[in-house]
């Protein structure tokens, strides 16, 4: 086992007695790999992330973490107008004593992390005034400065436009391949998981789940049963590169027509 390896087994949680949100989940991801969690609303993605993060004690099962974990929440509001630099510096929390202040070295490390994500020129800009994508990059920089081995992200692209979604996916890929961070993220977009994930876990409810290598788990039939929607696997070539993806077949107009016809 090396720093960055992450696994869980027999994992289950219920907020009410015997009403299991999920149960007997098992999964693993190695250093430098990306694990994607997919499931419809209410399937317990956020609960599972909280458990993996150590913020919630599971009703049953164990989580084996090797290395430091950092968390990237969904886009959030901060109560005060902190600068990007202030936000990144907070990643050093574990390295600064309870009654101490960050040192010049901590500040240098924060600035280097900002440089790494190409945001050094915005170091003093208020976090409030940044776009959703920029904020995510600042939080990535915070994870880098924490020298975390594992990064857990809660729907990192949920509130972003297409361009910023692409940027965040590129960064996740870069952090995994170049910085050798283990990345675990939840998403509502199977094509995002398909684009960057090495492994995937589909939360089908109760004790039902599919986990394993992304290409084996992210199939048309698995996704169709997960979302109760047909999916299509598509291959095409773009700029001499073979691209594969999965798209849901959304037909709102035909549904409306058939509904009104039935009425």
């Amino acid at each position, binding site marked *: 086992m090396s720093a960055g390896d992450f696994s869980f087994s027999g994992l289950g949680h219920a907020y009410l007695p015997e009403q299991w949100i999920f149960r007997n989940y098992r999964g693993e991801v190695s250093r430098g790999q990306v694990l994607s969690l997919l499931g419809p609303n209410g399937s317990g993605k956020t609960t599972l992330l*909280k458990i993996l*993060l*150590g*913020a919630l004690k599971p009703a049953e099962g164990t989580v084996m973490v090797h290395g*430091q*974990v*950092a*968390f990237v*929440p969904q886009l*959030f*509001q*901060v*109560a*005060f*107008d*902190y*600068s990007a*630099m*202030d936000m990144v510096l*907070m*990643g050093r*929390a*574990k390295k*600064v004593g*309870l*009654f*101490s*202040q*960050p040192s*010049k070295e901590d*500040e*240098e490390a924060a*600035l280097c992390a*900002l*440089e*790494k*994500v*190409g*945001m*050094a*020129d*915005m*170091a*003093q800009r208020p976090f*409030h005034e940044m*776009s959703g*994508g*920029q904020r995510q*990059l600042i939080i990535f920089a915070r994870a880098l400065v*924490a020298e975390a081995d594992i990064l*857990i992200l809660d729907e990192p692209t949920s509130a972003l436009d297409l*361009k*910023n979604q*692409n*940027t965040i996916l*590129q960064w996740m890929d*870069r952090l995994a391949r170049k910085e050798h961070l283990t990345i675990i993220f939840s998403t509502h977009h199977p094509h995002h998981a398909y684009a960057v994930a090495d492994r995937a876990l589909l939360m089908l409810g109760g004790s039902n789940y599919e986990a394993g290598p992304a290409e084996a788990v992210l199939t048309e039939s698995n996704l169709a049963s997960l979302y109760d929607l047909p999916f299509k696997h598509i291959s095409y070539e773009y700029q001499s590169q073979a691209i594969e993806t999965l798209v849901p077949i959304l037909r709102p107009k035909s549904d409306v027509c058939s509904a009104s016809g039935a009425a």
Partner: protein
Amino acid sequence: MTDSLPGIGRFLSNAASKARLRLSQSPWTKPFPLAVILFFLTITSLLIGSYPVPLWRALDIMTGYFLPAGWTDPSAWDLKEVAVVTIIRPPRVLVAVMAGIALGMSGTALQGMMRNPLVGPDLVGVSSGAAFGGVLGLWLGFIESQVLILAMAVAGACGALLFTMALARMVGGKSDGLPLILAGFFVGAFFMALVGLLLSVGNPFYPRGQRTYNIAYWLLGIFRGADPAKVWLIAATTVAGGIILMSLRWRLNLLSLGDLDAKSLGIDVRKLRWLLIITVSLMVAGQVAVSGVVAWVGLIVPHLARLLVGPDHRRLMPTSAFLGGVFVLGLDSFTRTVIWGEIPVGVLSGFIGTPLICFLFWKTKTKGWNES
């Protein structure tokens, strides 16, 4: 933003050097001028007052204590003037400075801890709880023991703060946001009613014939009657609490992100929150025990300090401390020199504070706190 992607790893000389220049600035650089202002205001406050001591004479008496013999002429001093400058004024001035520092710092800590810039010690019930504890201590006959009165005030402050946080959590699911302000209002009003009740029904241990003064003291905040014992009491709580809050000031940045995020950064949120609750209770109890409930200062001062130095608690905490001292000492000096009849500082701070906070409230309408 995507434009920056191809440039990863390249040397961002201009931006990075600018940012580095900012890093080289000490967190104490911006608060320092306020410390100087507080020092000179303290000296000035010792020289002025309602009893007519000529300015040059007051200065002569003060410097006489520090300068070698022969530099001043003590034979020219009137005994009353000496008493005013060396015995009567210093305790009051020092209590006002300490009270301002305590309120400024505890307000900053509460706002950071509760992720809400619209709270203060008096608005979340801490001051009222401390006043209740202090008055109850007097009721139980601890009138001779300042330490017991202080202990009761600390217990009252701590209890009230815990009540407020528990009520906010029960109503709103978390201990920040609007439920917190409302819960603080209810808890504060309840403890204030208890204080009013205890003061109204009379007390065998309490000095007789001073009911109006007592009510003004506990409910409105006044510094008249400060003595060396009060100075020692508030100095002990303010210095002890101040050192702890000053050491924890960067942790407030982390705590203000919210529990989940702070935990994910490796913070023991529970331990830190308890440490802050006890420290803030100690500081506010010390202030209330010697000068009663001084409203609004703990809310306004952190706001003004934030306008001066930004939200980073490393700069904000010392700025709030010095600004709090300047604010309260300024108000007290004003009320004892300019205004005939001496208005309680709590009334004056409310008079100035409420319009100011209305303006600041309006200014914060676009900020994230009200959506969090």
